[in-house]
């Protein structure tokens, strides 16, 4: 079974985000970038399927400028077999990304697509579901467990009330939640090996997709500050404040 893993380059999750003074965007100059944590979980899940003998090939795909090759190499170091970069100078929005991924799916014909449920920069949580619509594949979003049995993907999903398990015909799309697995660290030999793995590059024009954005960001501002509170000395004082000052209990 061939597994496709779309991955995204984002700000490292440990970096404190700051808004630019002209409020046009957040400041990404000289900021550490990394593989989106949910994408890392997706790569790990695909590699584990390969180690179990279920997957035969794992292909990592990223979309964006040339520097996204770094994140593809990270995925290759974690165990993906080869990479694809769809190069675009235009900042891509989820629908355009889903259309570009559909073009890659048409070429590669994967049996399973595993991807992060959201990226920690734009927090959209859309692309997997959109790719499902465009390819007419079923989707198992927010997955905490994936089992491939009797020709189906049985996906346990983290939902508001608890857990839900759905059975999906293959080919299918899985989007990962935090508890699906704990990703491994890439070893130095594997990082070296990753540099030699195949990486193909396509342009958005070659894939025939119009990537013009339809949602424009007018302004980015910092969130409202909370004003500093007070430290109380005892439980009695806390309860008194909650009852008589804040009047919330």
């Amino acid at each position: 079974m061939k597994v496709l893993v779309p991955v995204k380059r984002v700000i490292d999750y440990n970096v404190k985000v700051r808004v630019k003074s002209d409020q046009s965007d957040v400041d990404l100059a000289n900021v550490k970038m990394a593989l989106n944590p949910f994408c890392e979980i997706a790569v790990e899940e695909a590699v584990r399927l390969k180690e179990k003998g279920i997957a035969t090939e794992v292909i990592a795909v990223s979309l964006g400028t040339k520097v996204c090759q770094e994140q593809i190499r990270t995925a290759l170091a974690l165990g993906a077999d080869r990479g694809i970069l769809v190069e675009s100078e235009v900042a891509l929005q989820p629908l355009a990304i889903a259309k570009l991924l559909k073009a890659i799916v048409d070429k590669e014909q994967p049996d399973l697509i595993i991807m992060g449920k959201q990226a920690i920069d734009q927090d959209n949580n859309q692309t997997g579901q959109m790719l499902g619509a465009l390819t007419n594949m079923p989707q198992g979003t927010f997955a905490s467990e994936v089992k491939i049995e009797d020709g189906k993907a049985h996906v346990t999903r983290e939902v508001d009330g608890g857990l839900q398990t759905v059975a999906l015909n293959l080919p299918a799309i899985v989007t990962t939640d935090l508890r699906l697995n704990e990703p491994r660290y890439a070893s130095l030999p594997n990082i070296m090996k990753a540099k030699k793995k195949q990486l193909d590059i396509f342009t958005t024009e070659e894939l025939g997709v119009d990537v013009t954005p339809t949602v424009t960001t007018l302004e980015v501002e910092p969130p409202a500050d909370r004003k500093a509170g007070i430290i109380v000395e005892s439980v009695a004082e806390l309860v008194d404040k909650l009852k008589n000052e804040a009047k919330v209990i």
Partner: protein
Amino acid sequence: MSILVVAEHDNSSIKVATLNAVAAAQQIGGDIAVLVAGSNCAGAAEAASKINGVVKVLAADNAAYEHMLAENVAALIAQIGTQYSHILAPATSNGKNILPRAAALLDVSQVSDIIAVIDAETFKRPIYAGNAIATVKSTDSIKVITVRTTGFDAVAAEGGSAATESLDIVADAGISSFDKEELAKSDRPELTSAGIVISGGRGMQNGENFEHLYKIADILGAAVGASRAAVDAGFVPNDMQVGQTGKIVAPDLYIAVGISGAIQHLAGMKDSKVIVAINKDEEAPIFQVADYGLVADLFNVLPEFEQLIQQ
């Protein structure tokens, strides 16, 4: 303008999240229709018809919609969606699962998780785990939007008298099916709509110690939440997680117990009206957002707190 709101419901009643989404629809302005897709969902459809400000209820009652499978419900929304200028759903796990699929079927973008309406095509939404707020404008012919429920005060559940229309569209994609579900059973209020939330973190040390929080919650009529660290450690189930990727809450009172206050957790609760932090580490970042901080061992604090609030 005409707006379709996709209802969050349990077939017999409407969830509060639907009322928050209707509130966002009212701010956009226009005739508001509510879609109730489910199985044996006449009760939910009747409840939807009473929501204040709703002019029409569309009831799609079919086994294909029983478990809100995205493949089926998104196809239904896409079929009827072309008649609307806006399609809204609360950003619940159902809304987040279904609506982007419907948007792509309609060949339009989605604006996720809005917290404010500026005008019919301009909205505010948090990005980078709430560390920045973006104002975005959509030029799509149909605006598909998920609504962060804490951003909009719920409209009244009563007072309306909308006409109900039955839809006989059966969109059964036949590519997915329901296996099973394990839903938490609790008599406490739901996390996302509770007036008071008390949450525990890694400092709780194990699942049994959450009993302290349950007892206090039952006295206050509160819901109980948890940090990602507590869920990852297996103390409590995933549906209790508050944070960027868990539930977003904004109660009148949020009590954080043994929670350090990672950015991802703050993203899920910092819009609460009053925040209390109880932590023995005075350097914990949670104190920077707390209105009242108590630096102490939670195992000493909780029994005394329980006793004092009963008086």
